[in-house]
């Protein structure tokens, strides 16, 4: 699984698709660029997650997500670990404050996940949890947060002339890309995404279930450049069938802050900072 792609979309990268100026990019090329965009060596973001249930009841959560890009990814440090690292720490509400979740990605094997529960005072290694399962109880899946594994999907360009209108009413040219999961048993085998041509940010996605119903809709309300990196600051995932929604707002974000691998250790997980 690839982490830190959806919420930290990169600025268009210098070597963007110009190998054949006359030919439009293929679907695979677009998907590859989305995955490979620069999201910095590391990042630290403070976020507020608002969960709406089917009755409109609201649950607020505040969390800090700290990431380290794995070796081999664009922008990653040479000393970085093989896979991405992700540390999620809940800071609000009080009853789950300090609850933390650590993910070590391994490019060729299953990810490892560790959980720290303050009341228990111990780290627990978590087995299981699939890419298309709920991310910390929200409408996002781990895949939505971490990005889709390029090789798990086949791609088709639905439209090269789509556009996306931002919150200020400005239209931006975009591609409409269909991604089909190769594993037909997946919970969400099809995604139709709107990808900005200039930034390779996924700004909207219709996510289809196994009945080919548009079950979830991802939409971005605000993107902003931080330290030269385009970042989604305000987005939401609505589950149309379940009538639930998760609103995710980045309150503060910093890139390339010099995080090292030991910031993603069990000790760090237990520290609760």
């Amino acid at each position, binding site marked *: 699984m690839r982490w830190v792609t959806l919420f930290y979309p990169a600025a268009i990268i210098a070597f963007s698709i110009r190998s054949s100026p006359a030919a439009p990019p293929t679907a695979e090329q677009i998907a590859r660029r989305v995955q490979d965009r620069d999201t910095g060596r590391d990042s630290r973001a403070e976020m507020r997650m608002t969960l709406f249930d089917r009755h409109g009841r609201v649950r607020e959560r505040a969390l800090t997500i700290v990431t380290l890009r794995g070796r081999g990814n664009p922008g990653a440090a040479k000393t970085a670990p093989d896979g991405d690292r992700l540390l999620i720490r809940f800071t609000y509400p009080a009853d789950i404050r300090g609850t933390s979740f650590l993910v070590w990605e391994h490019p060729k094997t299953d990810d490892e996940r560790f959980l720290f529960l303050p009341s228990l005072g111990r*780290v627990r290694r978590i087995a299981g949890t699939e890419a298309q399962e709920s991310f910390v109880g929200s409408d996002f899946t781990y895949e939505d947060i971490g990005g889709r594994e390029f090789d798990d999907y086949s791609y088709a360009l639905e439209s090269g002339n789509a556009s996306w209108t931002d919150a200020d009413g400005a239209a931006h040219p975009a591609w409409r890309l269909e991604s089909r999961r190769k594993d037909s048993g997946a919970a969400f085998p099809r995604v139709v995404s709107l990808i900005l041509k200039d930034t390779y940010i996924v700004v909207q996605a219709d996510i289809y279930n196994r009945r080919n119903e548009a079950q979830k809709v991802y939409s971005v309300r605000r993107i902003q450049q931080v330290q030269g990196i385009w970042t989604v600051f305000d987005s939401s995932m609505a589950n149309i069938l379940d009538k639930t929604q998760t609103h995710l707002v980045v309150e503060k974000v910093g890139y390339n802050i010099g995080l090292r691998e030991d910031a993603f250790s069990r000790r760090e*997980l237990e520290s609760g900072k």
Partner: protein
Amino acid sequence: MTRPLADFLWRWRFPLTAAIVLCAIAFIPRANITHLDNDVTAWFSRADPVYRDYERFRDEFGGSRTLIVALKADTAERLFSRSTLDFIEQVTGDIERVDTVERVDSLATATTVEAIRTSDLGPPTSDLEPRTSDLGPPTSDRSSDGGLDVRRLLDPKNADPPEEVRRRALRDDLLRGDLVSENGTVTALVVSFDEQRIDQVRAGVIQTIHGIVDPKLPAGVKAYYNGSLEISETYNRITLENQRKFVPPILVITLIAVYVTFRSWRKMLLTIVAVGISILWTLGLYSLLGYSYNVLASMLVPLIVVLAIADDVHIMQHWDEERRHKPPEEAFKATVAHLATPLLGASGTTALGMASLATSHVVAVRSFGIGSAIGIMVDFAISLVFVPTLLSLMKAETGETPHEKYLVEPLRRVSIFSTRHPREVIAMSVALSAIAAFGIVRLHVDTNHINFFSPRHPLGQSARVIDSDLSGVYSFQIMLEGQPDTLNTPDSLQRMERVEASLRAMSNVKKVTSIADYVKRVNKELHDGDPAADVVPSSSRAIAEELFVFTLGGEGRRELERMAASDYSRAQISVKLKSMSSDVVLELVEQADVAAKAAFKDTAITVTTTGSGRLFSTLDHYLVTSQLSSFGTAFFTVFGVIFLVFRSARFGFLTIAPNVLPVIAVLGVMGFLDISMNIATVMVASVALGVVDDDTIHFINRYRREVAAGATTDRAIELATVHEGRASLSTAIINSLGFGVLMLSEYKPTAWFGGLLGLTMAVAFLAEVFILPATITLLPSMFGADALRRTRSRAAAA
């Protein structure tokens, strides 16, 4: 009064008959009895508090009307083999793709939480090992740093060996006994639907699911289907199948019986056309009133057939008697004048009884009551106009009919016996009533839908499997409501535990689950599976964290959402039961409600007991009580109607014995045969009463007419017995033979209807020709010819 009516009808007979026929033809498109309205609101009023509670529950936690597919393997090894697990995973996915399916709970969607000891975690990945060491030990004791396995039982990416899946499934308290049997040979797929839409497409969806599961079943594995939706659908299927299967033989036998009775092709055709027109009018008006056709409304047809044949036989028999001596006009007028009052009285009493159902809580009962009351009165009008009109166009059939040839003399002897041995007749009636009373003592009110089918029927077989190996076919829920974050506190969870404990102590309760169980399970596994940690923690923070842990798996989050609202302002306690009598379910529901209310007394949390178990047990209760109430109403109404029709209170009292005895006899036989008073048999009682009071009214009317014409008591009784008793006997024979075919049905309510209807008609006939004459003979000062004439003289003088 009846003579002017006869004159009027003779004058307008052709326009009226044409109108009757044309309207019947116009009603044909509306008389669609091949489509049943399945919507639950066809039964429950939206304003009904029980239904509103269920809607509120459904809105929060989803519906609890499910389809249960139990998969039974010959061995546990077979069930937990790779091929069977793959099959479960595949069909779960395929069923989830079916329209209106909201979710499937199965081994493929189950989430387990399990402690993993450090030694079980296996070696860390090679590249992690040195780095992990580099990171240094955690602040806590490293040796206790075990793992927690929160994941789907059948993980498509990391498929455990089948024996490991079996171990995990059977180890899980929430799965064992619910989704998988204790011995590991049976598992269930519980399919929940979008209940706003499922009823409209239910048959197709269930058929699709059968089509997904059955063809792919691995060798050695059998599928059993049950659940409230399967039961409802089976009802519909059987209702329609029975219509297709039994209507043709009923029609043929009825026609043959009519032919044999009158030995007339014309009368046979006339009867079938008249009955057909009455049915078309009834169903047409029923539809015109905006009512939908459902399983209960399917009883309209047999009800109208029975009553229409009774009316038509009386009319045709009387016509034959009049036509021998009179021209058509006179025969028409005499027949109408003679029969208008008793037919009105007979129809009126039955219709009033049915109309009393309009006060029922159940929408379907209300519409059935009003629809059948209108149908009965329309049938009366049609019979009185249409049949004599067509008879007047027929060639006179003056020959002796079989019913005269074979029934007159025996009935005359019966009349002589009744009037000569009235005490013996009454004594015998009392003795029979006493014997029947023993049976009535054994009679019980009980609607057990599963028992309506033979043990060999798939529904009975599946109920046995699900009841014995899994958590049972029925369920109900206790919904708890409070302020946000009140239902995840240690105090609330402990109260839930207390409720659960009291429910588990009740017989027939198979499984009880609440979020307390989820918290206990996670707490235990976080403490390395220590059984001592299988408790609700005393810290709110620990509970919040443990509930959070459960949501780490996507299915776990969904599962938790079905047990508690996201802000913990609502939670449910789910109670699963064996299939049983609706009355026992209702009793359990009420006991659970009391226990839960007691447990949450002095808190701000409110308790509502709801779910499909409460919905349907309440519905059955409503059905039986409303029918019994209707039956009672009709029973007493008959006195009022007779008082109005005959302007005589004493003849109202005379109807008591002949009306009571058939009812006692039928109820007694039901008791001896262990046939319960249920939603099916109470309908027989209503139809039976319509027939019973018809016989009584016809007899009394004839008796009074003969007395008024100068006959002695014995002669009047003889004429009434021979003429009206003969019509009753003919009707009983025709209907019993016709509906007797229903006794071949494998669906017990249908078989009961056929058998009990015949029994009721037979006893009603016997009561008419024995008890009425004996009572009249024994009480000459009240009912004797001289007493009646004296009363008439006094009334004329006054």
